[in-house]
């Protein structure tokens, strides 16, 4: 088999899917790309058995065939070859010879029959969503997922779909983010949990523009299609915690602050906090918010005051500053509302002004202040 392909366009496409490949895999063939050539089209597949990504590009080829090519050496060489057409020659024993203007490179491929099969998209439900809507939903939720594999349900983003919209929820038991979009419609009411890795990969493989994506799912798998780029992944088979009951309905006190001022103050003060807990205490009274952190081991201390609007009783509550900073990052607009009740109950964070089509709600549990 022989084909000719542009080095730069091949590299660009491969970089979209190379993130699937794990550095240390049990199965050596998972370190390979599967190349499938048919009628001047090249399809490349990468998989880690959980997530499969596939791209397609135009090439010059007379015949058709398949081969597995080790991913790392191919990417490393493409990165160093200036833009030019490359000729790939593959013999019966899956030995690959790449010819460029500069010279020849040889590498041993593997038998494509041993490459794992992709999941079949049987019995699926489909809906469409713009690329930017999906990427935004991922960006606003993914950071709040858990890494604790003892609670698998929390290691992914929970999707709730119905005719009126799409809702994405993520939590690590300390904080929770719920992001709603009303400009999406799904034919059925369904829920599923998507793992972190494929969502992270989508962020790099899909441009955040107005392009339309097709999302399909069945009981085990999710399929996302954007033009010639496709991704499929196994869904997390676990029950997502009943998050609705933990969202407080009636936090009586509302604190309104300038988002970027609050975030910068947290960044500065938390430098002086204990590095393990990142504890920053918020002391709110009247129209003043005081932030205080300390690290007893090193005798570090940081305090700042800032203006705020507040309608409640004086309150002292402590949070992990890292959580707050990440959540403020996810909020659009200049101002946020923080709704509070007592120092041991969850605080709610919402952007003051929200788009009609979307709704963001974030929840964070406090740190217990030392008595």
């Amino acid at each position: 088999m022989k084909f000719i392909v542009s080095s730069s366009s091949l590299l660009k496409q491969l970089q979209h899917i190379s993130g699937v490949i794990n550095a240390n895999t049990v199965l050596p063939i998972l370190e390979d790309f599967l190349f499938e050539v048919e009628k001047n089209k090249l399809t490349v597949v990468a998989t880690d058995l959980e997530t499969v990504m596939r791209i397609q590009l135009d090439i010059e080829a007379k015949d058709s065939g398949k081969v597995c090519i080790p991913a790392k050496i191919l990417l490393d060489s493409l990165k160093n070859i200036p833009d030019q057409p490359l000729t790939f020659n593959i013999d019966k024993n899956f030995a690959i010879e790449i010819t460029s203007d500069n010279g020849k490179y040889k590498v041993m491929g593997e038998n494509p029959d041993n490459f794992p099969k992709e999941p079949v998209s049987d019995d699926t439900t489909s809906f469409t969503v713009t690329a930017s809507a999906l990427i935004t939903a991922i960006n606003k939720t993914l950071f709040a997922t858990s890494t604790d594999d003892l609670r698998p349900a929390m290691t992914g983003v929970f999707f709730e779909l119905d005719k009126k919209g799409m809702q994405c929820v993520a939590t690590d038991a300390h904080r929770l983010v719920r992001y709603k979009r009303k400009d999406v419609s799904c034919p059925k009411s369904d829920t599923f949990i998507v793992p972190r890795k494929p969502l992270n990969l989508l962020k790099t493989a899909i441009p955040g523009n107005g392009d339309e994506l097709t999302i399909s799912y069945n009981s085990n798998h999710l399929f996302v299609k954007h033009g010639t780029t496709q991704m499929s992944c196994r869904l997390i088979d676990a029950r997502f915690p009943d998050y609705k009951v933990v969202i407080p309905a009636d936090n009586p006190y509302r604190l309104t602050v300038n988002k970027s001022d609050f975030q910068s103050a947290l960044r500065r003060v938390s430098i002086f906090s204990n590095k393990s807990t990142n504890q920053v205490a918020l002391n709110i009274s009247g129209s003043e918010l005081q932030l205080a952190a300390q690290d007893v081991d090193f005798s570090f201390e940081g305090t700042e005051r800032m203006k705020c609007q507040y309608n409640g009783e004086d309150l002292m509550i402590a949070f992990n500053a890292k959580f707050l900073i990440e959540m403020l990052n996810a909020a659009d607009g200049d101002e946020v509302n923080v709704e509070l009740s007592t120092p041991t109950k969850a605080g709610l964070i919402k952007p003051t002004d929200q788009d009609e089509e979307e709704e963001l709600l974030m929840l964070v549990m406090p740190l217990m202040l030392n008595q």
Partner: protein
Amino acid sequence: MFQKRYIAHFDLDSFFVSVEILNNPSLKGKPVLVGGYERGVVAACSYEARKFGIHSAMPMKKALQLCPHAIVTNSSRGEYSKYSRIVTEIIHEKVPAFEKASIDEFYCDMTGMDKFFGVSHYTRELREYIIKETGLPISCGLGSAKFIAKMATNEAKPNGFLEIPHGRETDFLWPLGIEKINGVGKQTEQHLKTFGLYKIEDIARTPKELIEKYAGKWGESLWNKAHGRGSAEIETGWEQKSMSHENTFDKDYTDIAFLHKEIVRLTEKTAYGLREDEKLTGCVTIKIKYSDFEVSSRQETIDYTALDDQLIAKAKDLFNKSYQKGRPVRLIGVRFSQLIPFTMQMSLFDNNISKLNLYKAVDNIKNQFGSELVSKASSLRKKTK
């Protein structure tokens, strides 16, 4: 000019044995071994037992071959730390700065005491006071550096006192064999002897550069020690880096249910210590020693916690991930590291406060009535006695 330092080193003689004798005076004058019966090692042995060539850390089996009529006991197990605490309290009261190097070893900085009392006189009195208060024999060495004080203690044993006056360090050190220097183990000893270095004097008379070549990085401090120069800094603010418990079984086990039971028991025990110290842990490690002494350990970071249920779940998970099924296990250990002061992150789905209150209530029972009294049903052991 440096200020003259006075460091005293106290070491309770065969501490565990002494406590056993205190609780059971009939053991006095007999070869006594403290440690596990079947498979453990000798944790301590009486001077009578040492005559048979037994030393601590020797496998119990071997010790009993050497001295079949030795009495093996560990009946006062809970008492060791109690006596250690009494001694610590006395030292804390009487000494300006001290470092607790282990359960039965203390370094005290006596510098400055010479202005008020004679250091030597005061140290002697302190030693006699400890003996009077606890009834335990204790040896003591006094010198200008930590290692000199410790070596003096070793020479003073059993139940003695030895002072190395300032300026006379080399007179004391040089005639001694190199193996007496703190830190020279069997291997270093053998290695240095191949270069003809038998006595500490030999090291001192060899150029520093050569010693550095022979002993590597450690050479400089070894050479300095041979000249009687060493650290006199007492580390009082010592921070605990990790907490652990491990258990060597009476025989090898492959039974998963039993091993899980042990993990629950060890985790519960370590978590109790964690809460007593008002700490949280951010990293759990499980250690498995197989019957062929191969050790595998696996650790994972977790969200900071001191709650039994979360720690047990993680410990079991780590065990299941690393245990090679069917391989006989000799020892299991649980360690918590990345300890931080207590700051509880509240959870959305668990009521951490009520859980914590539950565990604290159990801890209180343990504190009042003994730590062996309450434990999880799943970790209960059959009484063998």
